[in-house]
């Protein structure tokens, strides 16, 4: 289990997870609040392929939840279901106690789910500040006619947008890059900007799709601080997909493990680290290992040249 030992400092304050009657766990501080997200029997089929099935998950009001699993397990598909990029074939998604059935992608964002993307999707030709302003689109309103006729409301809304976008950028120390073209930012900054833009839509639940992909350990460490900072400052829930186990085990309070579209384990980081099914999903079956190794060794000892030829 050396893969799961954090190389960077662990930041998780030991949150006590409490089980609820309906077979879910949430952080103790969120027990009295409505869970921000409740998925029940969620599933989607692509033709004959059951990409996700019987997905049950509850995310507490201010929980940092992790969704992990091997490549192709269906993690991003779950995010696409939650944000209604795909309409689920089965099951329901409750956001803060309200059913999201039939909502479109923009509507579900207005209802309170914001996301980032695995492959960065910024408005690359626009400035950093304009990217955040687009995130503020539904927070500060001003009609097309106000814009064309430059009414006082236009100037008021633009001023407010400017102030709020700079305040948001400041959380990630990016205020001094506000006028740069977003496509020309370094990779890490583009990832941060995507998070700022998602935060600008004033979400209740922030979905981060592999936020640490391509980051070095020190950047990942900063990212962990930032995710905790976001949670504390905005009092929102964060759900993240990540392959970097240092990050997942370091900050997530509840973790769900997905394999072949099904949840194979849910629990605290400790429980997940010691769950035999999870270890099997990631590393293969332990019991078969010695047997296979012996057979291989025997085969190699008998005919090493043949073995190489076969490969």
């Amino acid at each position, binding site marked *: 289990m050396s893969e799961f030992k954090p190389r960077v400092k662990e930041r998780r304050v030991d949150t006590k997870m409490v089980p609820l009657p309906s077979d879910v766990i949430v952080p103790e501080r969120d027990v009295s609040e409505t869970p921000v997200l409740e998925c029940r029997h969620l599933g989607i089929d692509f033709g004959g392929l059951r990409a996700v099935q019987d997905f049950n998950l509850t995310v507490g009001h201010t929980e940092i939840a992790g969704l992990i699993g091997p490549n192709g397990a269906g993690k991003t598909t779950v995010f696409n279901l939650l944000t209604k990029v795909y309409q689920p074939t089965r099951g329901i998604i409750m956001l803060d106690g309200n059913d999201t059935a039939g909502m479109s992608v923009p509507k579900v964002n207005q209802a309170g789910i*914001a996301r980032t993307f695995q492959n960065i999707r*910024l408005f690359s030709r*626009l400035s950093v500040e304009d990217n955040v302003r687009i995130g503020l689109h539904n927070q500060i309103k001003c009609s097309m006619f106000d*814009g064309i*006729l430059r009414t006082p409301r236009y100037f008021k809304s633009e001023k407010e947008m400017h102030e709020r976008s*700079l305040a948001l950028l400041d959380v990630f120390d990016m205020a001094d890059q506000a006028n740069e073209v977003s496509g020309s930012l370094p990779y890490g900054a583009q990832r941060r900007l995507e998070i700022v833009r998602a935060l600008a*839509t004033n979400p209740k639940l922030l979905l981060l799709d592999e936020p640490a992909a391509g980051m070095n350990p020190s950047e990942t460490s900063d990212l962990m601080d930032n995710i905790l900072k976001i949670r504390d400052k905005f009092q929102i829930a964060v759900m993240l997909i990540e392959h970097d186990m240092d990050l997942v085990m370091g900050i997530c309070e509840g973790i769900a493990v997905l394999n072949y579209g099904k949840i194979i384990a849910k629990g605290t980081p400790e429980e997940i680290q010691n769950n035999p099914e999870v270890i099997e999903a990631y590393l293969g079956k332990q019991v078969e290992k010695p047997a296979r190794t012996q057979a291989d060794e025997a085969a190699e000892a008998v005919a090493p040249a043949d073995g190489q030829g076969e490969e």
Partner: protein
Amino acid sequence: MAKMTANETTAGKRGRHKMSRTLRSNLITFAIVIGFFVLMEILIATRVLTYSLRGQLVPICAYACMAISLNLVVGISGELSLGHAGFMSIGAFTGAILSVALANAISNEVVLLLVCMVIGGMMAGIFGFLIGIPVMRLHGDYLAIVTLAFGEIIKNILNNLYVGLDASGLHFSVVGTEQLGMSNGKVLLSGPKGAVSVNQISSFVIGILLVCVCLIIALNLIHSRSGRAIMAVRDNRIAAEACGINSTKYRMMAFVVSAVLAGMAGALYGLNYSSFIPSKFDFNNSIMILVFVVLGGIGSIRGGIIAAAVLTVLPEALRFLSTYRMLIYSIVLIAAMLITNTPQARNVLRNIRLRLKGSRGQRLATDVVSAHVADATNEANAEEDGADE
């Protein structure tokens, strides 16, 4: 920009700096339009301008508006529309009918022209909305093909439309002038012969005014919440929707505003002639407008206006070459596209730009606007080239 980052770290300063930059760019655009107007007025007063070139002034204004209009769709919304001449013809024919029908009610020519342009624009906007409903379900090439088809449909409907005016009001028919059922009326639209008796009320002054209005609408739209939403959908539709932006709504907004501007430009264009035919606004015309936008730099409002002006005048100016006129015209087009896209030529243009910037830096900011009006065309082309990178 890099230097600015180092020197000015406070957020407020940087915000103001950005505002002034877009403001300056917009002011230069307006200065070019006003400068062109003043220059032409001087040339008319001194009788330098030939009669045929004088006749091109209103079309230049109309096509400059068309370039602004199409730039909203192609450059800002990122969709290829090949039927923009259709919206222009709706404006032109609406204007042609109204210019006669309302001539008694409104005696002042300027007011009549403005009314014709506004209603022409509104009609084009309504058609833009109706066409937009099916078109906005499509993207890319498919959208282009469908807009092309709608352009042709509009042309063919107008080719079969007969409108007459008598004491009892307007009469419509799709069969012929005899079927209009008028006693002693005036035929306004006569099918393939087009608008046959137009009240020629367009003027260069109103044309320049319309260019300015179109500029204000387009530039204000781009730098507003709605404009940013349109550009967000252009840059990344999935991300824009994930930010809570209704992509269909904002693509439709760009399309309809563009149609309104095209309709107004069409009314101005049509009312410049005593008669015009529907075939004038065919596919070739749509492509020509697209050439203005592409040549001026997609998304560059200023470049589009300049390209429209140059390419509208060029066939007239090359008339002395008679047979070789269209040959030279196409060579100029190809050369312009090659020059703006080869690295060597871009370097030359960038050097020119830097030299102009260097000499400009010593002057006061207010001088910038009024300077270089005479050679505005060259300078703006060079500057636009750099700004678009």
